[in-house]
């Protein structure tokens, strides 16, 4: 989903995620109205918002164990693996409040990765990520797509995912 600031990308993503109810029309996945069973729809995707959705007073490991744990049973090894894939294995026992913005974004990405949901809804995922972080993120999205997953990404420019070409949706301001 491409478009300048203020074109409504975030709003549309929130409507799809069911956080915002539309004035008219409906959100359907595979022909079924998502409002029919909200909880089932929520379980089908993982959402990365503008904010990282992490608790500053908990460590990265604790945050992941909690947020992923709400959805599925996750082991310590999986958490460590995910953090390692994003280059921040050392952050496991560090309070999120002490991490940089880029590191926080990577932890949030780890949450998406661990969720196991077939659909990823990502709102400007590359925010705050440096070059290394962006490379990790793209690789992870690529692996998800290779495994048959779908990613709905809102961005200013089409992301470069190796081996995959996005279908673009342009939103005008």
């Amino acid at each position, binding site marked *: 989903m491409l478009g300048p600031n203020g074109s409504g990308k975030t709003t549309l993503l*929130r409507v799809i*995620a*069911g*956080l*915002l*109810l539309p004035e008219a029309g409906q959100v359907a996945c595979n022909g079924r109205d998502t409002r029919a069973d909200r*909880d*089932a729809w*929520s*379980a*089908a*995707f*993982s*959402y990365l*918002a503008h*904010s*990282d*959705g*992490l*608790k*500053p*007073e*908990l460590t990265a490991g*604790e945050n992941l164990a*909690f*947020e992923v*744990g*709400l*959805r*599925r*049973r996750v082991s310590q090894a999986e958490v460590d693996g995910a953090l390692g894939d994003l280059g921040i294995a050392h952050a496991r026992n560090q309070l999120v409040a002490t991490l940089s913005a880029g590191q926080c974004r990577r932890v949030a990405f780890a949450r998406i990765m661990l969720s*196991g949901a077939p659909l990823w809804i990502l709102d400007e995922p590359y925010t705050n990520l440096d070059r290394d972080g962006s490379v990790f993120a793209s690789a992870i999205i690529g692996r998800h797509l290779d495994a048959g997953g779908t990613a709905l990404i809102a961005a200013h420019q089409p992301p470069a995912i190796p081996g995959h070409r996005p279908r673009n949706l342009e939103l005008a301001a």
Partner: protein
Amino acid sequence: MSRTTTLSAALLVYRRDLLLAQRHWGQVAQPLVFFVMVATLFPLALSPELSELRRIASGVLWVAALLASLLGLELLFRSDHADGTLEQMLLSGQPLSVLALAKGFAHWTACGLPLVLFSPFVAGAIGVPLDSLGTVMVSLALGTGILSAIGAIGSALTLGLRRGSLLLGLLVLPLAMPALIFGARAIDLSIQGDSARGPLLLLAAMLVLAVTLAPPAIAAALRISAE
């Protein structure tokens, strides 16, 4: 990869909130200190005579506990809303009313329970006889529970609003008045030497009603505030 059961999710939420309270225990101690301070205002304002204080002790204890609980309700959803973790809980696919109930219970454990445990000291200081201290604790335990449940609705409705704390009091206090009536009456009966079973049972019934009906209302309010 197995899906988390609702019960496990509720336990996760409960433990996380207690962990957070533990790391912020200064913030959690504030309602307790407030409770003691409000109770102290009355001897200062009226009289140091225990016999006189005993006559209003039930009211003092309950009003102080109500106001202190209001203070504690602020913390219930505010920080989760601010850092986006509330949104993640909304999207977890778990029934929101169960998660809300877990949060409410954690909040009571961190804010209400210390109040209850400390109440005998405050009660004794304002003239409540030793035999009645048990009734004081039961009455306040049930009452703070009711207030946590009803207050959570108000807290969810006023999320993110400026001057939300003032509004919260306005919304929650009228709904807490029935509990106040029966809770204070229970303490009074006990001080007079009579059985407080009637009011306490009614209070327990109100708690059951609150714990049953409040979570869906809290969930609805959270969804409305998160938009």
